[in-house]
C-alpha cells in the first residue's frame, strides 16, 4: 500500500518553509504534532485504488499536481462582495479566504457568555490550554493520509468553545472561500469545535469558490460533544466543478451526547467527504445524514466510519444520492462495533436516483462487529425517476420539468426532514431547491452544457 509521493521534494520543501514561518511554531507540542503528521504522510503517501478505503476514488490527479500554499489572501475583497454567501440570521460568520481568517470579512455577532468563537491561529498565539488539550487528539492520521497532510499544515481554521450548560440559539457559519488559482494551490483548513457538557449548538461549514483553477481544499474538523450535548453539524460543499475537496469530520461523542452530521455535496469536481464519529460514551446517539447531487463529471465520495466503542449507543446513517450525466457517486459505510459495545443499534441506508445511463454509483456497506449483542442493519437502493409518478403529475397539468423537480425535491426532502427546524435547515433547503432546479431542467438524453469541458477523473487516473 505504500506509495512514493510523486512530488515528495515539493512537499518537503513546502513543509520546511511552512514550519519556519507558521503560527504556533514556538509551541513545542504543535511543532511535534505537525512534524509527526508530515512524517506519516511521507511514509504512506497518497492512497491508491488498491487501498480498500479508496477503492472507488482515484486521487492520482491530486498526487501528480505540484501544489503550493497560498500567499497573502486577496485584500481587495470586501464584505460587500460576500453578501450572497451570508447565511441569514446566523449569530456569527467566520470567513476564511484561501485558508486564512479574514476578520474584515467576518461578522461576529453578539454571542453571549460561555461562547468562544475564534481561530486556531489566534488560540495558538495565546498558547491556549484548550487547543493543546484537543487539537490532533481525535483525528486518525495513521489511517488517512489526507488527515496526516492536513495536520502537517494545520495553521488556521475555526475554534469554537461552548461552556457547560450553554445553548446557542443561532447557528455559527464557517465560510471557506477559494479564489481563482492561476497555479495549483492547496489549503488545509483545520477546525476545532469543543462543546462541553449539556450544551446545544449548530455549526455550518460551507466551502465555496470565487473562481476556478487547480485547487485542493483538504479540511479537517475535530468536534467534541460532551455529556448530554446536542449538536448539529452541517458540511456544505459547493465549490467550482474543477475543485478537489477532501474533508474529514471526526466526532467524539461522550456519554449520552447527541450529534447530527448533515452533509450536502453539490459542487466540487473530485470530492471526498469523510465522517468519522466515535461513540465513546454510553448511550450516545449519532445521526449521519447526507445528500449528494452530481452532474457533469463530478465524483462525489461519501465515506463513513462509524465506531461504536461503548454500550447502548445508536447510530443512523441515511444518505441519498442524485446523479446525472457521467457523474459518479460513492457511498462507503463502515460500521465498527467494538467488543464492549453491547446493545449497539446501528442502521445504514443509502438510496440513489440515477438520472442518466452513464451516471454511476458504488455503494458498499462494511460491518465489523466484535460484540455479540448488537443490532446492525444496512440497505441500499438504486433507481430512476419513476415514470408512473411523472405521468401522474403531468396528467394533472404540471409541466415535465416542474414535475421532475417536484419528484427530485421529494427525494431530497427525506434528508431535509431529518434536520432540525431552524436557520441552518432553511439555508440548506434553499441551496438544494436552487440546485435541483438546474438538474430538473436537464431532460434525459440531452447533453448538459459544458459537461465535456470538465475533467474526467477516471481518465486522468
Amino acid at each position, binding site marked *: 500500500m505504500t506509495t512514493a509521493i510523486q512530488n515528495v521534494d515539493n512537499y518537503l520543501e513546502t513543509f520546511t518553509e511552512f514550519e519556519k514561518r507558521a503560527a504556533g511554531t514556538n509551541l513545542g507540542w504543535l511543532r511535534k504534532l505537525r512534524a509527526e503528521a508530515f512524517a506519516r504522510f511521507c511514509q504512506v503517501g497518497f492512497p491508491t485504488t488498491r487501498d480498500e478505503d479508496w477503492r472507488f476514488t482515484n486521487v492520482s490527479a491530486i498526487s501528480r499536481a505540484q501544489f503550493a500554499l497560498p500567499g497573502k489572501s486577496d485584500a481587495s475583497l470586501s464584505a460587500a462582495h460576500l453578501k450572497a454567501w451570508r447565511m441569514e440570521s446566523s449569530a456569527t460568520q467566520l470567513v476564511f479566504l484561501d485558508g486564512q481568517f479574514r476578520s474584515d470579512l467576518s461578522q461576529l455577532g453578539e454571542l453571549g457568555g460561555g461562547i468562544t468563537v475564534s481561530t486556531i491561529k489566534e488560540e495558538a498565539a495565546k498558547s491556549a490550554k484548550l487547543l493543546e488539550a484537543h487539537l490532533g487528539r481525535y483525528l486518525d492520521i495513521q489511517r488517512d493520509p489526507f488527515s496526516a497532510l492536513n495536520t502537517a499544515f494545520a495553521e488556521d481554521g475555526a475554534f469554537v468553545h461552548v461552556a457547560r450548560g450553554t445553548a446557542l440559539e443561532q447557528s455559527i457559519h464557517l465560510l471557506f472561500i477559494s479564489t481563482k488559482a492561476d497555479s495549483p494551490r492547496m489549503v488545509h483548513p483545520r477546525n476545532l469545535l469543543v462543546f462541553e457538557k449539556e450544551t446545544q449548538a449548530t455549526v455550518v461549514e460551507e466551502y465555496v469558490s470565487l473562481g476556478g483553477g487547480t485547487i485542493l481544499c483538504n479540511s479537517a474538523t475535530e468536534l467534541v460533544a460532551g455529556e448530554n450535548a446536542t449538536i448539529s453539524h452541517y458540511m456544505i460543499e459547493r465549490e467550482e466543478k474543477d475543485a478537489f475537496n477532501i474533508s474529514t469530520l471526526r466526532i467524539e461523542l461522550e456519554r449520552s451526547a447527541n450529534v447530527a452530521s448533515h452533509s450536502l455535496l453539490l459542487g466540487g469536481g473530485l470530492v471526498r467527504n469523510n465522517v468519522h464519529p466515535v461513540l465513546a460514551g454510553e448511550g450516545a446517539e449519532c445521526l449521519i445524514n447526507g445528500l449528494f447531487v452530481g452532474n457533469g463529471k463530478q465524483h462525489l465520495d461519501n465515506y463513513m466510519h462509524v465506531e461504536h466503542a461503548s454500550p447502548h449507543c445508536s447510530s443512523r446513517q441515511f444518505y441519498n444520492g442524485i446523479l446525472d450525466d457521467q457523474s459518479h457517486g460513492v457511498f462507503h459505510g463502515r460500521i465498527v462495533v467494538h467488543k464492549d459495545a453491547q446493545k449497539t443499534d446501528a442502521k445504514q441506508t443509502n438510496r440513489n436516483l440515477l438520472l442518466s445511463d452513464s451516471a454511476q454509483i458504488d455503494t458498499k456497506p462494511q460491518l465489523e462487529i466484535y460484540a455479540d449483542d448488537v443490532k446492525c442493519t444496512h440497505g441500499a437502493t438504486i433507481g430512476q425517476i*419513476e415514470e*408512473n*409518478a411523472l*405521468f*401522474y*403529475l*403531468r*396528467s*394533472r*397539468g*404540471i*409541466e*415535465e420539468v*416542474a*414535475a421532475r423537480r*417536484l*419528484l427530485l*425535491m*421529494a*427525494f431530497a*426532502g*427525506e434528508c431535509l426532514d431529518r434536520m432540525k427546524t431552524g436557520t441552518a435547515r432553511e439555508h440548506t433547503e434553499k441551496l438544494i431547491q436552487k440546485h435541483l432546479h438546474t438538474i430538473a431542467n436537464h431532460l434525459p438524453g440531452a447533453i448538459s452544457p459544458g459537461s465535456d469541458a470538465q475533467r474526467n477523473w477516471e481518465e486522468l487516473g
Partner: protein
Amino acid sequence: MSLLKIKNLHVNVAGHEILKGIDLTINPGEVHSIMGPNGSGKSTLAQVLARREAYAVTAGQILFDGKDLVEMKAEVAACEGVFLAFQYPVEIPGIGNTYFLRSALNAIRKYRGEDEMDAMDFLPMFREKLKLLEMDDKLMNRSVNEGFSGGEKKRNEILQMAVLEPKLAILDETDSGLDIDALRIVASGVNALRNKDRGMLVVTHYQRLLNYIVPDFVHVLVDGRIVRSGGPELALELEEKGYGWIETEAKAPASA
C-alpha cells in the same frame, strides 16, 4: 361543436396493435360509458386520451374541443381540460396532497392566463370539495396517495377532478375494488360534477357503477373495436348475459 371526436383511432403499445379503429363522439353534457372484457383496450383508450407517450397513435385522429389532441403533451391536454381518474392512482412519497393539488390547479390557471391561487383562497374551496367526497382532511396532510386505502385513492381521484374542473372527465375503472358505501360516495361526487358543458367517459368492466352514474350512451369494446353502441339498457343486457355472446358475435365476421 363536439367536445371529443375520435376518428378511426389505431394505437400500438410495445409493438402490438391494441386499438384497431375507434370512432367515438362525445358532445358537451353527455356521459358515455365504455364497457368491455379484460384486454379489450378500454384502459388503453383512457391512457391515450390522457396522452401517455408510450401509447403510440399509428392512425386516425382525436379532436378535443376542435384541437388535435394527439399533438398535445400530457400536461397540455390537462391544461386544455382533459382529466383522467386513474385505475391505479400512483403513490408519491414526499409530495403533500394539498400542495400537489394546488400546484396542479395553478399550472392550469397559469396556462389559461388566470392568476395563481394562494393558500388563503385555495383552502376554503378545497374544504368544500372535501366535504363533497366525505374525505377526512387529515388525509390531505399526507403525501399523495401514500398509505391510502383503495377506496381513499379512488375518492382522491374524484376530489382532484372536482378541484380541477375539467371539460372532459375520463374515469378508468373507478368502481373496481370499491365497497357499496365507497361506490355511492364516489358516484355522488361524479354526479355532482355533471353539467351541460362537461363530457364524461366512464370506463368500466361492471354494470354496477352505471346504476349510480347513469350514462347517456353505452359502447362495448371488444378486441380494440367498438362492436356495439346503445343506451343504458345495453349495460343491463351485458350484465345479464356476460361478454361471451358479444365476443362471439364480434369474431364472426359473417354475422357482423
